[in-house]
């Protein structure tokens, strides 16, 4: 890497100069020797960096983005960790020292060569994952920390979200997210579905919050990388396993993504997502509770009594679905006419 070569040669020039100056300063030097210490110095530097990162998060729990600051040289004694409002920056020069050091530190722990306390593990894995979130083993260490109660699941949702601001595709990050969500929603005390009478079955408030947050994270990641397969397949997973394909959620998603896909017409994943929503709504049609929800939400008038007779009921369902499909086709046609030559739109049709 050009950066490191420059860095090293600058360093070496300085060392050579120091030696020259030492002789100028003291012409009576009568002995030379090696002082074994460089490793210790580097480790002190790096421990400080890791601490700086930890403190940054303590100081500002609302950090919402991380990034590398291209900066080939250290600015004498200044920390490479830069916190500006809600953005955490790491100066690039320190990565080549920082990463191998924390990486090896974690491996020494895994190989049972050096025990690390839980809070140290937390800091080390966080540093590692902000730099290299595909390091699955580091995520797994955090899974153990979650299981032992050292880390709250929500902390890791936050860490994963940050990692995704810089690495929006990272498969291991999405995988870890799914594991955390499963843990979070498995808790026996967490209510899932709430029967809301005339509007049918809805998700509990807590679950709704979780789902909404996931939709937000997915949207952001989808915006950061075109046709982000991992973000969209995660989104589908959340609807299938957390929201349990609740009709209200599906309908909300259909309306909230309409604008997005219109702005990202080459995004095949976005359109596939809408196909998934429509298909799931079709499938949900066969469940009476969900059908009621569909009916009530598409027709804003109050439903005082159940639709009379099976035939009537099914007719309404069919109309609702074909209404949705017609809408979708209209959207498609509109987009195709506005933006010619986009394969994804035709596939969607």
């Amino acid at each position, binding site marked *: 890497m050009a950066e490191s070569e420059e860095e090293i040669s600058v360093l070496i020039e300085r060392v050579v100069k120091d030696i020259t100056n030492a002789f100028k300063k003291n012409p009576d030097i009568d002995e030379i020797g090696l002082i074994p210490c460089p490793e210790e110095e580097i480790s002190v530097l790096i421990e400080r960096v890791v601490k700086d990162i930890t403190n940054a998060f303590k100081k500002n729990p609302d950090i919402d983005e991380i990034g590398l600051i291209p900066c080939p040289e250290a600015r004498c004694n200044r920390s490479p960790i830069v916190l500006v409002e809600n953005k955490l920056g790491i100066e690039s020069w320190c990565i080549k020292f920082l990463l191998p050091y924390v*990486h090896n530190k974690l491996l020494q722990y895994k190989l049972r060569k050096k025990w690390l306390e839980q809070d140290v593990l937390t800091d080390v894995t966080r540093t590692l994952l902000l730099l*290299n979130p*595909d390091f699955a*083993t580091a995520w*797994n260490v955090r899974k153990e920390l979650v299981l032992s109660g050292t880390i709250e699941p929500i902390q890791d949702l936050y860490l994963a979200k940050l990692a995704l601001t810089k690495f929006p595709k990272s498969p291991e990050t999405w995988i870890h997210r799914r594991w955390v969500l499963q843990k979070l929603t498995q808790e026996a005390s967490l209510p899932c579905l709430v029967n809301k009478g005339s509007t049918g079955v809805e998700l509990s408030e807590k679950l709704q919050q979780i789902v909404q947050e996931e939709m937000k994270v997915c949207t952001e990641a989808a915006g950061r990388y075109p046709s982000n397969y991992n973000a969209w*397949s995660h989104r*589908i997973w959340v609807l299938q396993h957390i929201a349990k394909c609740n009709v209200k959620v599906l309908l909300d998603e259909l309306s909230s993504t309409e604008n997005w896909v219109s702005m990202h017409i080459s995004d095949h994943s976005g359109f596939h997502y809408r196909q998934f929503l429509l298909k799931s709504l079709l499938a949900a049609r066969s469940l009476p509770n969900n059908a009621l929800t569909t009916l009530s939400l598409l027709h804003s008038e109050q439903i005082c009594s159940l639709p009379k007779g099976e035939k009537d009921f099914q007719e309404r369902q069919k109309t609702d679905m074909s209404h949705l499909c017609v809408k979708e086709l209209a959207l498609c046609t509109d987009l195709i006419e506005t933006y010619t030559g986009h394969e*994804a739109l035709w*596939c969607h049709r």
Partner: protein
Amino acid sequence: MEYCMSEYLRMSGVYWGLTVMDLMGQLHRMNKDEILEFVKPCQHECGGISASIGHDPHLLYTLSAVQILTLYNSLHVIDVDKVVEYVKSLQQPDGSFAGDQWGEIDTRFSFCAVATLALLGRLDAVDIDKAVEFVLSCMNFDGGFGCRPGSESHAGQIYCCTGFLAITGQLHQVNADLLGWWLCERQLPSGGLNGRPEKLPDVCYSWWVLASLKIIGRLHWIDREKLEHFILACQDEETGGFADRPGDMVDPFHTLFGIAGLSLLGNEQIKPVNPVFCMPEEVPRRINVKLELLN
């Protein structure tokens, strides 16, 4: 530092490097002993194998390790029975496979599981029928496959699923014409192949898509000359390696798939490659792995 960054996939990296060397008849230039010494301590107590020493075991790296040892005819270096136990333990009630103890489900892992067992001659260790059921449930209306039921079709996943079906003798369940059409639609004017509609071409898709086409007997649906031209354009003249597309940085991953793709296209400087295992054809043949592809 780059070594650190990619250590999490080291076992696969070794497999890519060795395989491409073997395809070019140059395996002898690699240090066999050193590599075997590296693989051995990566097997954990559960039988699973990790990407590197100290990392956690996973099906992905278990397959890569078995492929490496198969290339070197050195399976004795690890405990094969334990590997089989590990793979078996990852199968779920619905037939799917988790990647590791933490439970992520993906059709890639179904492929890793059966490919590993096939190379070890132990396909009988898992419930193949259920495994097939799950993979088929991931088939989409366009004939393609996604990572889980309901997921978008993706060339990489399609490769894994068609490979899986080839190993389990279930290729007749594929709609070869429909899927073949989807796959050859991946070819762009540049001659290169992408992984999904409206994505950029990438040399690694030359492998995922091409191998899938070969498996379902529709290789001729691709314009071979244009693809070969694209792959060769991805080779860097200075280093000799291949990048994802012309002009980009080279790496072993794309180098392997570029060479493997050329092999499938019939390049005579390269050994014939097996489209399911992505290893020289002579290797699965040597160990009597039976594979029937579609015509």
